[in-house]
């Protein structure tokens, strides 16, 4: 059975992969491209662990057919940091202990990145609603919200 070839840009690299028409982009990212930082928590778009940026927009990669990625630009959690240089969000998550088990963390970081791209100075409420699609069962969200707020402040300071 032949498979569909998809060409796209992932975390800055041009890549090709093969997929079935009904395969999810999540599975292709994990199995074909080895980007296992993208997590599967539900496969139905309810937990956000598989969040990616697709052409700059926040998406659940489990809800995208792999062939749809043709020609797109994708960012996963693996593409956030620049080498050893963490983003302010990543650094604030570490310093603020905004992760416990860490399974939701990749999706939360991607969603928070998307939020700050669109809204550099979000209120607590805006942060909470922006992350409502990212379930975390460990932290109770408190430290996540604080870390996002802190990162936003740092980014604003740097860019000011």
């Amino acid at each position: 059975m032949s498979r569909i070839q998809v060409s796209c840009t992932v975390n800055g690299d041009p890549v090709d992969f093969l997929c079935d028409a009904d395969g999810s982009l999540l599975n292709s990212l994990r199995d074909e491209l080895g980007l296992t930082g993208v997590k599967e928590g539900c496969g139905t778009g309810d937990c956000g662990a598989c969040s990616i940026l697709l052409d700059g927009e926040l998406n659940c990669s489990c809800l995208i057919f792999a062939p749809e990625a043709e020609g797109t630009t994708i960012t996963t959690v693996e593409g956030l940091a620049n080498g050893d240089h963490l983003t302010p969000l990543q650094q604030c998550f570490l310093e603020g202990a905004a992760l416990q088990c860490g399974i939701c963390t990749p999706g939360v970081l991607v969603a928070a990145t998307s939020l700050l791209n669109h809204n550099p100075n979000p209120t607590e409420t805006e942060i909470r609603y922006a992350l409502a699609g990212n379930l975390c069962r460990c932290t109770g969200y408190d430290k996540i919200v604080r870390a996002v707020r802190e990162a936003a402040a740092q980014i604003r300071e740097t860019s000011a």
Partner: protein
Amino acid sequence: MGTLSRLARRLADLVGAHRAALQPAVCGPGIAKLGATPLDGLPSVGLARLRGTHLKYFAPSTVEEAVGLLAQPNTKVFAGATDVIPQIRAGRPEPDALVDLKKIDRLIAVQCTDAKWIIGAATPTARLTANAEFSAEFPGLAEAAGLIGSDQVQSRSSLGGNLCNASPAADSVPAMIVNGARVVIATANGGTRSVAVQDVPTGPGRTSLAPGEFVVEIEVDRAPARTADAYLRMIPRTEMDIAVVGVGVRVTLDESGKVTDALVALGAVAPTVVRVPAAEAALIGSTLDDAALAVAAAAASAACNPIDDKRGTIAYRTHVAGVLTRRAAVIAGQRAAEKNGASR
């Protein structure tokens, strides 16, 4: 009805709002026309790559192409796919081909003329709600569209998908109905037809679309002066839930603040969205005073024909439909008063 509709009929349950974004707009038998052309300057998946694959994926770039593809048996169109993928995972029978409508320019567009707004059926709701003019003119519809799923889902959900999934709980449908929205449907013979939004869903998971048809655009006439809408839903959490009850209200006021026109539509309280003429009648001629609101709320409750299920009870839905009708009417009235004729 085609295979897709048979599938859809199995959705006896109140399937959810964000699920709703993705159900096939239609399907049907016919002739396959393979191949797809570049969209937005990006190469789309070409025929050569697809040949030999059991399940085929097409990304047509024109409505005509899509119509041709849909002529093939057991073909499923999708916009956001946030429903189709979970269905496949859950083991529902797969179609033979998937047709992605998002590469068709006309389906991903928000336009405004002097007479109406034209919204591509597959336009991501995030893009629609980001349109400040649209959101100012139809705050209720914009809010309803914005309630479909998480931010992640908002990148994919669409009015067309939300409508054609035919969930009784779809958030945007009551809001479209109170704004008199119509859909432009591409027909199997290559033409188009227009029908009112309320005539599209015929029951949970069922639509009036014929085989080979799909929704191309949603049209909403420009809001008259001193007119505004509101949509409220009840969910147990604050996000990520399917509406237990959803209510859309639109009112038009005269210069004295008296209601001259009103539309009320209820979601998740019956197999399809319910218009409530008695509530509308109670509001028209009133100043949205307590007495009129009470009559409207009671009328809304009386119009409910809900079910008991895992998301709510008959008694709960019936009561809350009245509560939300009153609240949505008040909000719509305030908005209309604030507009004070400035909507055009």
